[in-house]
């Protein structure tokens, strides 16, 4: 089973620059922890059923470290799409880039995390699926190949649903579905020998990367009416009032 895992390089501490864009260059970053679940699932699948895990990531030069970590965990090769024109790219551009990168080689499965921990948009994987003309199942907790397709368990609010789908398919994996392995030092050393292909927009045949969203202002949220401490008789009514106000009861 050949699997492509989408990974994102996220800053360790998310901050906005003067242009209201997330600062990604020149700061410490890491492989998005949410992506590790998908990566782990992919590694376990190929360990059980054979095949290769390739990792795709779009990001600045530093994003290579995220791919390195994925390789250290066991992925076989990486594709790093880097191009100065991609700075500040939005979900649509990202989806087009990833779809183009993924589509260049045959695969059985595309895996991603449910949402990135620095953006929380969560739609890129399905947009990629649509661009590639593939089915998708999001928020899954398990996947097993069966009869030329796959049997998938997807988390729902009240439990889980079971899906059947032909391959290839795009899936996003929920946190906690699997326990991501901690890369051993041996893995880190071996990762240095694994190939990482660098691709630019020209390589992918994409020319339009206009971003269609702009943050026009950033301001502090209204200070929470918090920090109140109460005692005695008013405690219970106040708590229940708060619950009501939060619309949970």
């Amino acid at each position, binding site marked *: 089973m050949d699997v492509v895992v989408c990974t994102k390089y996220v800053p360790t501490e*998310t901050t906005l620059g003067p242009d*209201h864009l997330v600062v990604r260059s020149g700061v410490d970053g890491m492989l998005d922890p949410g992506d590790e679940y998908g990566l782990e699932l992919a590694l376990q699948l190929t360990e059980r059923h054979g095949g290769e895990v390739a990792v795709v990531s779009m990001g600045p030069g530093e994003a290579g470290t995220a791919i390195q970590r994925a390789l250290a965990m066991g992925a076989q090769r990486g594709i790093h799409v880097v191009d100065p024109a991609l700075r500040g790219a*939005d*979900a*649509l551009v990202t*989806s087009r880039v990833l779809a183009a990168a993924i589509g260049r080689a045959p695969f059985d499965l595309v895996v991603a995390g449910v949402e990135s921990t620095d*953006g*929380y*948009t*969560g*739609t890129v994987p*399905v*947009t*990629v*699926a*649509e661009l590639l003309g593939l*089915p*998708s*199942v*999001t*928020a899954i907790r398990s996947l097993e190949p069966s009869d030329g397709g796959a049997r*998938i368990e997807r*988390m*729902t609010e*009240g*439990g*889980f*649903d*079971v*899906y*059947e*789908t032909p391959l290839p*398919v795009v899936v996003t994996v929920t*946190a*906690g579905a699997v326990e991501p392995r901690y890369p051993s030092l041996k893995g880190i050393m071996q990762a240095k020998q694994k190939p990482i292909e660098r691709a630019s927009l020209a390589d992918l045949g994409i020319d339009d990367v206009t971003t*269609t*969203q*702009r*943050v026009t202002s950033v301001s*502090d*949220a209204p200070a*929470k*009416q*918090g*920090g*109140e*401490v*109460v*005692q005695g008789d008013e*405690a*219970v009514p*106040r*708590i*229940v009032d*708060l*619950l009501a106000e*939060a*619309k*949970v*009861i």
Partner: protein
Amino acid sequence: MGDAFVYAEVSAEGPKPVALELLAHARGFGMPVAAVALGPGATDSARALGEHGAGTVYASDDPVFADHPDRPAAHVLAGLVADHAPDVVLFAQTYDSRDVAGRLQARTGSTLMANATAVSDPRHARAEIFGGTQVVEVELDGPSPTIVLLRPKSIAAERGGGDAEVVEVDADVPDDVRGARVVERHEEQASGPRLEDAKVVIAGGRGLGGPDAFALLDELAASIDGAAVGASRAAVDAGWVPYSYQIGQTGKTVKPEVYVAAGISGALQHAVGMKGARRIVAINKDPDAPILAMADLGVVGDLFQLVPAITEEIRRRRGS
């Protein structure tokens, strides 16, 4: 001036509450609003959708939308969008709606904004970032329609519409566009929501003194829909509850609407697992406990009295 589409999640029980909220968001645009309801229960939901502001409801009860949750809906919606050229399509920020929205974006090539808390017009929306401490205003450019995903509970649903015109939609979905198929559904009744997904998390710490007191928290959780019980590391280490309850640095991170901490001191190790909660209520008998400083509502008192009393009060208010 065009119109606004609202993608309304529906079921046999009617429209999901968040769909009605979307209509309230769209009301502010001052333009005709059409709801798109796809799946079993769609036509029956039309009335409620109309009452909440939809002028038109494009409906199809075809089971294909329930059996294949995202692709057929996106396909049909894309067709409607192509035919009617709305200025904006509003979705709920839920797993199911998000899947449809993402696919729609691939077809329309237009911009998509997620996690919005308000949308003033098809080209301007607002979101909160960094744990709710910062507010960003966003301008949406590019071709129409813009796609905006709104967080549940960011607005109150409002009645005040009339009758909606129901337009039957042809669910002619080609086989190769159906995608994954649901073959089994499993509702786990007893366990309630998972900690990570629960709207309300009630967590117990060392102050509970033992495993028995967790029954009090279970009672409280049972009185609230979508509540789950968790614990601090201290309670797990003491063996009172299993590790799956643990919230904190070496446990789960939760971001519920309300986090109720009972008998938890609030050391950083725990705080990192729950400080993203929208509202924090803390009950502790120690007035110097750090958690009281980080709570929206801190209560100095005896949890053994307070927790049952809260459960009582909730039931009383529910009853009435």
